[in-house]
């Protein structure tokens, strides 16, 4: 792969005995929206902070547009950073918070114009003279966003920007962040542990686990073609099936791809319904596989069924049913090594 606009080479970081990052290689294109996704403690925030210059890497190299910035202090990188806690200055008003990094660089009237522009962008004109404690969580988040954007950064770095908000506000702000990303044409890197957030927002997702990058790809790639059981399991729901025919191969299928069939077809899998949950638009059904003598095996598969199908097949607990695994949707792993999700 060619060197990207922002490029991370062989980066490692330890905190005492704990490895936080190991041999990280990452290339990010200009104007790309990247999500660093992984369970807590996987090193994603550390990677973001090293990119921001707030943390020093033990080894490795960081370049932007070919320029080495590994040793450059945070303030000189021209990156906008938004913190998980927002880190809004509590004794300064909304306008003063946004103007914070601008003083000394611009004249007073330029600052005022810039603050007005940003307040308009995040729709906080009326709140300009309030202090953070008078704002709602979502408003605080937007102030933090405006502050990070104030210096027209080359890169916008977001550390779990939505994790402190309610579900509804979260979805609204997802769109807001994407809108600003496109408007400013920035390169954005966002850390999240929420796979749905990553799938809906990112151009490419960087999946991390235990201090390493596991997979890099578009949301569609990591969802449909996960390169290991960990990624498959971490992003979306999935069932793993160990096959007897092929040694040491592990098959996996997403619940929405399983097809129920009628009649007694030889090729079909037979299973018994153990449990189901109502999810509104669909039912999630947990079935236990049966062997050729109809004895239950220690293998379970999750199937998502639209309410209509549920009724058509008359699915009930302890009822037997048959299903097919469409070959184009079956994901095959060679090793059964790491199913565990951190």
């Amino acid at each position, binding site marked *: 792969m060619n060197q990207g606009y922002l490029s991370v080479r062989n980066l490692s970081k330890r905190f005492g005995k704990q490895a936080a990052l190991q041999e990280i290689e990452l290339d990010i294109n200009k104007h790309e929206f990247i999500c660093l996704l992984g369970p807590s403690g996987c090193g994603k925030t550390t990677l973001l902070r090293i990119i921001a210059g707030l943390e020093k890497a033990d080894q490795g190299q960081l370049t932007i547009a070919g320029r080495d910035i590994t040793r450059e202090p945070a*303030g000189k990188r021209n990156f906008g950073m938004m913190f998980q806690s927002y880190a809004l200055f509590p004794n300064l008003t909304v306008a003063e918070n946004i103007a914070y990094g601008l003083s000394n660089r611009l004249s007073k009237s330029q600052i005022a114009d810039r603050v007005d522009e940003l307040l308009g962008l995040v729709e906080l004109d009326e709140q300009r003279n309030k202090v953070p404690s008078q704002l709602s969580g979502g408003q605080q988040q937007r102030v933090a966003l405006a502050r990070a954007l104030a210096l027209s950064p080359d890169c916008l770095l977001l550390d779990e920007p939505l994790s402190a908000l309610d579900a509804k506000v979260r979805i609204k702000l997802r769109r807001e962040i994407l809108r600003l990303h496109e408007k400013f044409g920035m390169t954005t890197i966002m850390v999240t542990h929420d796979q749905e957030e990553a799938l809906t927002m990112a151009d490419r997702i960087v999946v991390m686990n235990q201090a390493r990058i596991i997979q890099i790809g578009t949301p569609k790639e990591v969802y449909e073609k996960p390169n290991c059981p960990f990624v498959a399991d971490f992003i979306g729901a999935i069932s793993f099936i160990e096959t007897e025919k092929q040694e040491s191969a592990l098959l996996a299928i997403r619940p929405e791809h399983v097809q129920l069939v009628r009649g007694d077809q030889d090729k079909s899998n037979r299973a018994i319904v153990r449990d189901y949950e109502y999810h509104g638009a669909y039912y999630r059904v947990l079935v236990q596989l049966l062997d050729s003598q109809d004895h239950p095996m220690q293998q379970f598969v999750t199937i998502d069924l639209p309410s209509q199908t549920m009724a058509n097949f008359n699915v009930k607990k302890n009822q037997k049913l048959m299903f097919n695994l469409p070959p184009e949707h079956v994901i095959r792993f060679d090793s059964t090594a790491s199913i565990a999700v951190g």
Partner: protein
Amino acid sequence: MNLWLKRIRPDSNALSQNLIILIMTLVLTVTILLPLGELAIKAVSNPDGQFIGLANFAKYFSTPALVTSLWNSIKVSSITTVIAVTLGFGFAFALERSAIRGKSFFRAVGLLPLFAPSMLHGLALIYLFGNQGLISTGFFGRFPEVRIDLYGPIGIIMSEVLYTFPQAFLMLSVALMSSDYRLYEAAETLGASKWRKFWTVTIPGTKFAILSSIFVCFVMSFTDFGAPKVVGGQYNVLATDLFKQVIGQQNMQMGAAVGVLLLIPAVLSFVIDRIAQRKQNGFLSAKSSPYRIEANKLRDGMLFLLCLVLSVAILCIILVAIYGSLVKVWPYNLEISLSNYDFSNFASQGSNPFVNSLVISLCTAVIGTIVTFLFAYLIEKSRGYRILRASAYLLSMLPLALPGLVLGLVYVFFFNNPNQPLNGLYGTIWIVIICNIVHFYSVSFLTMTSSLKKLDSEFEAASESMNVPWYRTLLRVTVPMSFPAILEIALYFFINSMVTVSAIIFLYTPDLKPASVAIVNMEDSGDIAPAAAMSVLIILTNLIVRVVVMGVTKPLRRRTEALLVRKQL
């Protein structure tokens, strides 16, 4: 994109901050670590500076008079501790766990002795139980005489109890305040009786605080100089011995040995307190529910009586001191006048001790607060020199284990040395101010640190990523947000500098004698009334300063507290 926005100034952040961290470590080393090292060296060497092992200690323990004062110290301190902790627990329990009336009044009175120099208690006791005392003479013959043997252990213990009681009360009331009511509910559902609950929930929940307060009270009275000086009579204790050895006989080596002995319980107390703090932390969780006070008439009645008796005793002591200071010639001319407040007759040499004390305390408060804030900030919030900052933190805790008397002693050893580059400080007002700052530094440092911890740890990172220098964010955000804590430590420095005597008695300059030392000197030469007047002046000043400062800044403090956004995570 706006290219003009990307004009970037050279990075001065890391450099300036790291430089200050280096200076801070150096300052802490010179003012705390090196003087202590000097004490250790002196204690094991002879006057010529040769190493003689434990010979000084051997000599100490073979001198019967000195061994006696060690035992006296232990005896007096132990009795004081038992009384002060018991009373403190009762008082704290009444205020935190009962429904008595007048809690805020009792709390205020209970803390009153903190504003007074420890000599005031002794002086008031003389007015009550001395040869011509109010009670000894039965209010000048109106009632039967009640004579006790004040000068000696009884007087010292009474005085020390008054001196240590507020500390015990404060520590125990914090512990009793933070309890987990769910434990009481659990005990209740399991059918435990009131006594069983007290012994199985209350006591285990506060045992670390009790342990800590026992050690603190013991150390305070073990190392106190004021009370034994005023009411000790011929009863020698370690603290007065030290004074005699060093100031009287200029025997620095023996003084160092006594200093090390004084240090032992203090260091023990320090270690126990650290362990207790750590253990106590695990006791409460965020889910703990606050204590709910059940109605209990008998308990409330008894505890009210206890609080009343103690408060009356404390108020009596202070009122008697005031009365004594106003009486013209006790007990012959009971006319009220302010003649005793004219110190020009007594503090013959140099300037007015009271003014000196005000200057010293103000300087200590201003410089001490700035230094403490800066050090706490650098240790808590900066990111350079991890190891250096960790050792600076340890050094900042060290003065907690240093009794004032020992601190004053090690400062004499360290700075009163012609070969010492900082020798110039000795004999100036600055050595007194530095000594006061170090003496009260640890407590202020802890207050400041816990206040800084409440601020978002990402402020510094946020300003760094915006290329704003650290000192700008410090001045614009951190200082205003820390205002209540800054005020608190400034008052702490001021009030304690006004009342302290133990450390600076070794260091003051005769022409700039502080008020607390003047009290000791006046009492020494029999001028009880002016000594009482000076004590009254100190306690009044402290009270006025505190009330005025807290009153004036109340709106500002309220506003700052309202700004703190609840931590979201």
